[in-house]
């Protein structure tokens, strides 16, 4: 069930990325894809324990695997910087082209 949800989210992002001709919508589609992958990763490694921010001092305490969360955080940071860069480029591009339609900007073709 969970898997299906993340898969559909992923496909949604993918289709959104491909069918939208607007550059900004394209990157939103990409963000949805990335988010679905991260959600899947985090939820899959959640074993129902406590968040891994406590010390293991109490007996019987279960902590989740901390590594996926660290990885996901890193991935989010990377994605954020990528998106910022992408948006900067789109703003720069708007100096030359008023529209942000992918197919109307001929230079994106070849």
């Amino acid at each position, binding site marked *: 069930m969970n898997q299906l949800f993340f898969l559909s989210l992923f496909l949604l992002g993918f289709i959104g990325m491909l069918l939208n001709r607007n550059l900004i919508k394209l990157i939103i589609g*990409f963000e949805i894809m990335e988010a679905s992958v991260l959600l899947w990763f985090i939820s899959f490694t959640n074993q129902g324990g406590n968040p891994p921010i406590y010390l293991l001092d109490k007996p019987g305490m279960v902590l989740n695997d901390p590594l*996926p969360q660290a990885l996901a955080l890193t991935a989010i940071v990377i994605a954020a910087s*990528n998106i910022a*860069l992408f948006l900067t*480029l789109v703003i720069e591009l708007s100096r030359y082209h008023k529209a942000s339609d992918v197919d109307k900007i001929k230079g*994106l073709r070849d």
Partner: protein
Amino acid sequence: MRLSFLLPLLIVLPLLTAFLIPLIDILAIALRKILVIISISLELVFSLSLLFYFSPLGKEKLPISYYLGGWEPPLGISLSLNHLGLIFSMLVSVSLFLITLYSLEYIEHHEGKYYVLLFVVLGAMQGVVLTNDLFNLYVFIELLTVASTPLVAFDRTSSAIEAGIKYIVYGLLGGLFFFIGIVLIYLSLGTLSLAEIALSFSSLPIPFQETVLIFFIISLTIKLGIFPFHFWLAKAHSSAPAPISALLSGVMLKLYLCVFLRLFWVVLDFPLMEASWLKSFVLYLALGSSLLGHLFAFQEEDLKRLLAFSSVGHIGIIVAVLLVNTPEALYGGMLHIINHLIMKSALFLDSGYFLQFTKSHLIKDLKGVFHYNRYLFASFVIVVLAMIGIPPLNGFFSKWYMLLAFVEEGIHLGGIVVILGSLLAIPYYFRVISYGISPCEEKPVVSLSQDPPPASLMIFTILALVVLTVVTGIFYFCLNPILDGAVQELLPLQIYPPFPGGS
């Protein structure tokens, strides 16, 4: 083990330089150039000392490892160096050294930002080569994408920004698929250390292994610009400034080839890939890509796009020959990686010098431009001859070994593609040369500035690359010890760098 402290230094030094440059700019802008030169020379010295100590002639034996923060493998992250890493680390240092020297005279605006980005790229490249952790690899690859995109769009013209957008979209998608592959591996194996993955990957069920392989293949074909995903390559490589084109086409593609080699040969299960249809699929895809790259270059009117398409052709043939997976094939492929790096960097830097004097990058505007500098023209011709594969220049030997590998394994299509590639290369390069030397009455239109800028460093860089072209051609067998070491590491199913002290 005494020298293992150099491994983190190789990564940290450029990153540190990148952060120091803005600070130095506050003090005095004149100091920036000195810092840049000192830092890049130090990097080269580190790399050379590694080569000196760890080459088969030296005293110490590879591989070596360094544990970051003193944490032992199961918990900590480690850096490691084997023969393959040594080759690529050397290539990165040497070519970045030359490219930086070239940039000192070529880049005229926003120099501070340019060097920050360049040094981040250098640090990320060394990281990709040296790291021993899958997630670190991902981070460094993403860092490469992030840092090189502004460099692609550095000119801020319409086409440069379009190229940047195209580059980053493909880069993001490639990175995402790489991440999915990592997630799949972590979920099933619970580790991200390359060595441990190599130990236990083959115990997974085969359909799952194939799925992981597919994600990594998609990611790397996007990054390498193999046929259905080659669209970004020509655009990005042609719109960037000349040293960046050389960096992208000469060095960065080779770096992804290094990732390709490490992932599929050492970490993931190559026998599985060889047994399944995936190997032949990728092989023939790469061959087709190579042929198409040369065909596209044949009809191209723009000089830098022509060179970029020729890169598509060469990368395709390298990937194909590596996948043949015999000693000759791996040897020839790696020899061609080195040679193509040298040749393509030289061509891009050379054309960068000449394109300063023309209105546009179109070949028909090149008329008479080679008369500006006879030595650089001669070097262009020599490198083109090497590209085509004329002995005793270096391109010939890699062509010979690649042909040998293809024909020995009975993949005649591969041999024919190698031959056709060099045959198609003659007319398109000769067209450039004949336009360049055709006499013209009036001087070509100088667009940037009326006086040609001082260019002694640029000329020195190009001539150094040409000398390398000739030397690695005549003395190609001097590379044998290291290349053989690398082939030995790749060929049998070996464990990644062994853990001293056990895990």
